[in-house]
């Protein structure tokens, strides 16, 4: 079904090199792939293989050393509100309440909004992530899961076409992680965003992805795998035996692709 969607992001022969201690090393090597509109694309690979770099390039926070990234056919020239980034660490402003944090994006807009408009709009997204009860709290008073939800609401509120998520659920306990998987899937299905999601958790990748891009230790693409598992994949569906078998089989497939990549023992794949 993904085949009929138009291309939204096009990564073309992208290479990114860094200089570290005078030595040049490749974070990414000749990577090419496309992200379709309303696709949920997951990028997996060992730690330090350039997953986050790739996300930063799409976000426009950094630029490729060679190759181009096209967004709707136009080269990415810098960050923009059409691409919301959810970083691995929490990017909440500690002096603002949860509500005021979510309102931040509105304050950068050219057309001013009234205080009531801002609050109503922010509340909509806080309710969407299930944080409507804690809007007056400050980030320092929130648990890890609540901070995640708050960051998510903050980014969703700017109505990005694309959500770029970098290890967004890494630090969460398994129960909170499961809830966040349901939330993000629900939001993606209703808001029709396009999501590029970086993780090193294979279970997570298989639960969420339409397609999985596997990066190897050299920073190039090992394979792009289509995930044929039917949705919904979370909650009661996952308890179906046939589904469960297919889930494990596909996870094996992804795992085997990664295993081909040398130096398995140092991989951070679980």
């Amino acid at each position: 079904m993904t085949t009929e969607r138009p291309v939204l992001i096009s990564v073309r022969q992208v290479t990114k090199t860094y200089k570290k201690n005078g030595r040049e090393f490749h974070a990414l090597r000749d990577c090419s792939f496309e992200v379709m509109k309303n696709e949920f694309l997951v990028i997996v690979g060992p730690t330090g293989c350039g997953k986050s770099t790739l996300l930063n390039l799409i976000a426009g926070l950094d630029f490729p050393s060679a190759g181009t990234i096209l967004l709707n056919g136009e080269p990415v020239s810098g960050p923009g509100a059409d691409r919301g980034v959810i970083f691995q660490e929490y990017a909440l402003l500690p002096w603002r309440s949860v509500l005021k944090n979510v309102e931040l994006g509105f304050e950068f807009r050219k057309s001013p909004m009234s205080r009531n408009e801002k609050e109503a709009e922010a509340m909509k997204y806080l309710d969407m992530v299930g944080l409507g009860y804690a809007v007056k709290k400050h980030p320092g008073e929130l648990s890890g899961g609540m901070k995640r939800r708050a960051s998510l609401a903050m980014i969703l509120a700017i109505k990005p076409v694309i959500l770029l998520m970098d290890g967004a659920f890494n630090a969460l306990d398994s129960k909170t992680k499961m809830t966040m998987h349901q939330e993000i899937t629900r939001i993606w299905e209703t808001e029709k965003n396009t999501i590029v999601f970086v993780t090193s958790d294979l279970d997570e990748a298989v639960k969420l992805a339409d397609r999985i891009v596997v990066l190897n230790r050299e920073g190039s693409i090992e394979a792009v795998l289509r995930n044929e598992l039917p949705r919904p994949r979370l909650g009661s569906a996952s308890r179906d035996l046939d589904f469960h078998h297919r889930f494990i089989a596909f996870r094996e497939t992804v795992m085997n692709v990664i295993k081909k990549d040398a130096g398995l023992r140092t991989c951070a794949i679980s």
Partner: protein
Amino acid sequence: MALVADRSFYVLGVILFMIVWQIAASLRLFGADFSEAFSPLAAILALIEMIKNGELIHHALPSLRRVLLGLSLAVVVALPIGVLVGYFKRVEQLTYVVFQFMRMISPLAWMPIAIIIFGVGDVSVVFLLWLVAIWPLILNTSHGAGRVSPLWVNMAKTMGAMDMGILRKVVIPAAVPDMLTGLRLAVGVSWIILVPAEMLGVPDGLGYFILDTRDRFRYDQLMATIMAIGMIGYLLDSANRWLIHKFSWKN
């Protein structure tokens, strides 16, 4: 309960200090002729007298006015400079040596120059107070603006913020705790520099009054003025600590 015990120890410290001081005076440790006038008892009596006849207010108000004026002008100049220095690396490099060099010079060294330019009087005093207050304000503000998490800046950028928006919504609010620390230091040094600065030929103020009591041989009033300077300084610092407590965010 613990709080009451904590508080009483603060008060106890003050009482013990007064007792030691009084004993030293009674033992005539400050010289046979002056020990009487230098005792805390004499100072407190003189202080009450000065409060009653309005002399204290007459001299404290001009002093406070000068300090507040110098501080306000320093804040207006120092905060924008501090933010720019902290946020733009090139501005920091341009100003680093000059600022570090300037802040090590006692403003009293500028006294003759201040008098040549501004003449004897209020303007010179306020200028010196301004000059001493700007350095802690600039350096602390720039420190605060400089350690803003790049994560916050990147997030603001991905939300479509421009430089101005990032400064207003991220960098400046993030630097507030450091600005307040700078203000506290600035108030401290201003109040210290006030006394010698007011010996510069102004007709009132606590610094002037120190010289005046000396010339009139009213050593009890001199001690009372010293007490008043310490107390007002303590109150100013307390007000600052309250500001820091009230407006500082914690991570």
